[in-house]
Structure formats: structure tokens, C-alpha cells
């Protein structure tokens, strides 16, 4: 691409500063002049939304920590103290607990967008793998955070999840004892989980910097899945992308606020309002909704070790996606077959999520096994073969061409906004 514009400091102070620390120039070239494909649709706004959610979680979390007590005997009561006695403590806690769910809503949309438009393909492999790492870190952080209120589901969820490590042959039991800091989930477990829950968001923030760095090195993918060639294919990040991101961020906040203010416990479990009790096992131990597909995969395999391996593999396989998908064409817009398989895959993931919340019995198990098989087949069988046999549609010559061929004659009034697509 031609000519990245450079920052020209105007004031004497900024000129002085720019010679010593060119931070204004960095911001300018990364978030103002940065060329962004002009055909990006609203699905591309979720990266910004995710950054917002990370900041929101860190801010609410830091304030919650001022009132929370990480001790097995006091954690549950200190959360109730936050809910009752701390000024707007109920708001902070509900923002934080629902914020975790909204974070995952946004990341799933972000990931499926990447899958649909082939955002993981050359040269964006590292960008994609950093995203998979971010997703893993988010899962770890979410899990650690859910144990902190020290309710029944916190305790038993922690017990079940840490027990995955006991599947490691030979040293499993030792590893689990080491993780727990004892012979069962207890106060040492809670305290280390709290420490790590505070640490990991900053690790996430660090990897986000790498993720954005990699993004800015290769440029954004776009719905056409072809690289920008001229200045006609791009618009400046500000005001074009910023105005679009800002609108969607506020729209997303409305969904967030709906849960926080009106159904704050919908995404949680009633059992977590019962203080942790090692002597009483809840009737159904169910993880948070965002882990349910993987929980279904775990339970679909009738062997401890292979169940855990399958669950881990179901995420690790994502990191190999850039090489498993053999198609040279990125966007599903020009891949008629892949587009259908994509939606089947979405349905399979939703189905696994639903099955993860069901008791592992009867037809649910059979369905889980079929969908687990399909989940892996999508990556390991369908995608490698599809790239070889699929007859793709002709790609447009340029992004500008693809936009113009969508039927907006030059000089005509702007068409009414359509749902789901823009530009």
C-alpha cells in the first residue's frame, strides 16, 4: 500500500515531545491514519468491543478487589457484603459477572467472523494463533473468577475442572495435589486462584498488544477476502472505523446493560448462592455457559484421559486451522460450499453447548458423540478436502470493485441501511 501518512506535530510542545517519545505519532499512525478496508461490515466491530470489555472487566475487578476477601471462610460473605453494604457494590459485581459473559459473547462473534471470512489465512496465521492464545487465557480467567464467590458451583466446578489434570498418566494425582495446595479444593486453592485471576487479565492485555501489532503488520482482512491494492480500497481508521465501532460498542452495551440491570443472575447458577460445602454435591455440576460445548465434548468420550484430550484438542485444533483449510480463497462469500458447512458448524457448536447443559444420559450422550465427531470432522476432514474440490466464485478485482458492484450507482442517494451489511 502506498504512503502511510505520518504525524506532523503542530505545537512546540508536541514537536519537542515527538523527538523524544514519538507516542503521538504511534497513536496517529495506528488509530487515525491507519488504512482500513472500506468494505468492512459490522462484524468487524467486535475487536473494539472486546478491548472495551477487557478494560471494563479490569476496572470493575480492581474496585471489587478492594472489598472482596479471598478466604474460604469469608469469600461468600464478602461478596454478599459487596452486594449489600458497598455503595453501588451490586452494580460493580453484576457488571463484572455479566461482563465476563458479554466478553465471551463478543469473542465468539469475533471468532466466527474470522472463520466465515477466512481471516486466519496467509499472512494472518500468527494473528490468528495469538487470538487462540487470548481465547485460552480468557477461558482460564473466567474459570478462576467463577470460583471466587465460593458458592457451591464455584467449589464443585473448581473440583471437576482441576480433576482434569489427574488424567495425566503417572503424575496426574501429584499434579492435582500441587494445583490444589492440599488434598482437596480448599482455602489454598481459593487464594491461588484469586492471585491468578488478578494476574491473567494483564497477561491478556499484553497478548492483545501483540494481537493488534500483528494485525497492523498484515492489515485487516475484509468481507471480500482480497488485499487492498490502492487508496481507493481503504478509508482512514478515523473517522470511518471509529464512528462505526463507537456505534456498535454502545449498541452492545445495551445488551450488556439489559443483563446487568434486568436479569443479572440469568447467566449464573442458583446453586452459587449456596455457600461452598465439600460435604454436599450439587445435583448437576454445570460449568458457565461459555464452556458448555467443550464440556459436552469431554463427556461424549467414555474414557477419562481421552475425554480430557478431546476437550483440549477441540481448542488446539483451532491453532492449526490456517493449514487445515486448504482453500486459497478466504471469504465464504466466494465459497458456496464452505458457506453451507460454516453454518452447519455454527449449528453444531450451539448444539454441543445445549448438550453440555443437559445431564449425560440417554439420547443426549449419543447426540454429543455425533456432534463431537462432526466438530473434529469439520476441521480435520471437511476443510482440507473442501479446499481441493470446491469450485469458488470469481473474486472481484479490487475491494472498490466489490463495493461498487453491490449496486450503489455513483451519484445516487445512499441506499437505506441493510441489516448485517454496510458500505
Amino acid at each position, binding site marked *: 500500500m502506498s*504512503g502511510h*501518512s505520518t504525524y506532523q506535530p503542530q505545537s512546540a510542545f508536541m514537536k519537542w515531545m515527538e523527538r523524544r517519545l514519538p507516542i503521538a505519532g504511534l497513536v496517529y499512525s495506528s488509530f487515525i*491514519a491507519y*488504512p482500513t478496508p*472500506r468494505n468492512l461490515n459490522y462484524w468487524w466491530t467486535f475487536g473494539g468491543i472486546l478491548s472495551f470489555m477487557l478494560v471494563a472487566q479490569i476496572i470493575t475487578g480492581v474496585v471489587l478487589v478492594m472489598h472482596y476477601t479471598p478466604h474460604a471462610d469469608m469469600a461468600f*460473605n464478602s461478596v454478599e457484603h459487596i*452486594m*449489600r*453494604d458497598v455503595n453501588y457494590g*451490586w*452494580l460493580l459485581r*453484576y457488571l463484572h459477572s455479566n461482563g465476563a459473559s458479554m466478553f465471551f459473547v463478543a469473542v465468539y462473534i469475533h471468532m466466527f467472523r474470522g472463520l466465515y471470512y477466512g481471516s486466519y489465512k496467509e499472512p494472518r496465521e500468527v494473528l490468528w494463533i495469538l487470538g487462540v492464545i487470548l481465547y485460552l487465557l480468557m477461558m482460564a480467567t473466567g474459570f478462576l473468577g467463577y470460583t471466587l464467590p465460593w458458592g457451591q458451583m464455584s467449589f464443585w466446578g473448581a*473440583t471437576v475442572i*482441576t*480433576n482434569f489434570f*489427574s488424567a495425566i498418566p503417572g503424575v496426574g494425582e501429584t499434579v*492435582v495435589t500441587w494445583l490444589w495446595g492440599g488434598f*482437596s479444593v480448599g482455602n489454598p486453592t481459593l487464594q491461588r486462584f484469586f492471585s491468578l485471576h488478578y494476574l491473567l487479565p494483564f497477561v491478556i492485555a499484553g497478548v492483545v498488544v501483540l494481537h493488534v501489532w500483528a494485525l497492523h503488520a498484515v492489515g485487516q482482512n475484509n468481507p471480500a477476502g482480497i488485499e487492498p491494492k490502492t*487508496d*481507493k480500497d*481503504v*478509508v*482512514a481508521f478515523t473517522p470511518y472505523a471509529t*464512528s462505526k465501532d*463507537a*456505534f456498535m460498542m*454502545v449498541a452492545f*452495551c*445495551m445488551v450488556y*446493560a*439489559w443483563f446487568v*440491570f*434486568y*436479569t443479572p*443472575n*440469568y447467566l449464573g447458577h*442458583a*446453586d452459587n*448462592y449456596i*455457600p461452598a460445602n465439600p460435604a454436599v*454435591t450439587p*445435583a448437576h455440576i454445570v460449568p458457565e455457559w461459555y464452556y458448555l460445548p467443550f464440556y459436552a465434548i*469431554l*463427556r*461424549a468420550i*467414555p474414557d*477419562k484421559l481421552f475425554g480430557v484430550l478431546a476437550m483440549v484438542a477441540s481448542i488446539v485444533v483451532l491453532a492449526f486451522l490456517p493449514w487445515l483449510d486448504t482453500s486459497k480463497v478466504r471469504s465464504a462469500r466466494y465459497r458456496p460450499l464452505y458457506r453451507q458447512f460454516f453454518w452447519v458448524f455454527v449449528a453444531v457448536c450451539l448444539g454441543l453447548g*445445549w448438550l453440555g447443559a443437559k445431564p*449425560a*444420559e*440417554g439420547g*443426549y*450422550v449419543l447426540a454429543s458423540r455425533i456432534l463431537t465427531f462432526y466438530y473434529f470432522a469439520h476441521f480435520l476432514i471437511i476443510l482440507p478436502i473442501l479446499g481441493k474440490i470446491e469450485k469458488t466464485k470469481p473474486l472481484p478485482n479490487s475491494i472498490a470493485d466489490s*463495493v*461498487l458492484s453491490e449496486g*450503489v450507482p*455513483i451519484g445516487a442517494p*445512499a441506499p437505506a*441501511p441493510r441489516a448485517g451489511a454496510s*458500505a
Partner: protein
Amino acid sequence: MIKRAILALVLTAPLGAFAAPASAQDAHSTPVPPKQSWSFAGPLGKYQPAQLQRGFKIYKEVCSSCHSLSQVSFRSLADAGGPGYSPAQAAAVAAEYKIKDISDAGEPIERAGRPADRFPAPFANEKAAAAANGGVAPPDLSVMAKARTYERGFPWFLVDIFTQFQEQGPDYISALLKGYEDAPKDFQLPSGGNYNKYFAGHSIAMPKPLSDGQVTYDDGSPATLDQYSKDITAFLMWTAEPHLMARKRLGLQVMFFLLVLSGLLYFTKKKIWTQVKLHPEQLQARPPTEYKH
């Protein structure tokens, strides 16, 4: 080895799964609690102070002999969005209770309660509570209304997001209080158990706590089990979610603000992008003054 047992539970469940549904569909399945109309439901929901006061009377006269309310402080009885007592009335309620404390001389004493105190538990400790109640301590009631639920099933769990239905806990509690019946002839009631059609497994340790006419209301409300069960449930919803009214009120303001802001941002975005849509041939990626060529 708890962990072994859990893993066995989680991982071997699929193996025996095909036989399981038969046992789940036993003759005494638990009915879904009937849906009640609650004043605190919905986006504009509010507690009714009179109902909370009636509920509090039931807690004081009936429930508190076995159940603690340890998270709730006396002063909160006078908080906005609650039962609507004055600070003096809340202090008077507190003074009726004896609180264990340590005197300035270091001796254990019992003193009159103060507004800052929390409701004292009826038993000295959990073991004493269990010993006095057939082996299982009666649970604390502070967050009970949020700690019980029942399965909504597809598609209702999705519909609930939009209708904001989240009163499973209150529906369950009020149903449970009215759900005491004679056990069916073919039902083997364990000793110490009481038959309740809404309780999972139907054998509940708590004997029927409320009956018609048991508590005398001061405001002329009907002294019926139906009324009692609604009033105590509303009170327990308040103890579980004391800031519900503030939450819903702030929610309305936030939603209105976000709606207006998103509308403004949408039209801002539209205006910015009009040029791109109308005259793409004139589009310049960056303002010319910013180029450094």
C-alpha cells in the same frame, strides 16, 4: 477420594446413560411451581413495603426459630427500597434481639441489638442447629430466593431473556410452602421426612411451617396460607436482593441514555460514511495535508 468420585461421576455417566432415563421418570416426578404474579417482577418492578412488613412478621414469628438471616443487618430494614421502617423502628427491632459480644472487661456478655448488628442465628453454631433438627442444619435464608430454581427448558430459557422472567426462586419457595400433602400410598417416606410435592425427592426435613390463621396480620390482610406464602417469599426476595428497586430504576435511566447515544452515534456514522457511498471516486484515504511526500 472426592476427586475420583467426581471424575467417575462426570466421565462414566455416558456409559450407563442409556438406562438412566427410566429412573428419572419415576412415578413421583416434581411438578413445576405455578407461576405467581410478583410486584417486583419486570423492568418496573417494585417491592410493596406493606407486604415486606408482613413477610418480616412471619420471619420473626415462625421462620426465625430455626432459620438464620445472617447477611441482613437491622439497619437495612430502614433502607430505601425495603420494608419502609423508620430508623427508629429498625433500632427498636434490633433492641428486641440479644447479641453475643465481649464486654470491655473481656467477659462474654449478651447485649441488646443495635441497628448495625446482623440478625443473630437461632443456634449457637451449625452443629447445634443440625443436632436440634434431625441431623441437618436449616439453611440460612438471606439469599434463599436466589439460591433455588427449576429448569425452564427449551425454548423458555431463551424467551426468559426477553421477558425478563427470573422469579423461579420466589415461585418455588411459595409453592414449597403450600406443597405439603399426605404422602401417596405407594411412597415410602423416610423417617423424619415430610411429604412435599415440590421438593426434589419429596421428602423434606422441614415440617409444614405455615397454616391458615397462624400469624396475625396488623393490616387486615387475609390470614391464609396463600397470603403468608406470598408475603414471606416477597420478604425473602428483598433480603436476597435488597437493592433491586435501585437497580431497576438505574437500569431504566441507563437504557434510555444508551438508546439516545446509540441513535446519535448511528446518524453520525451514517453522515461520515455518506461520502464514501455517494462519491467513492472522490474518496481520499487520508486528508492531503497529512501526507508527507
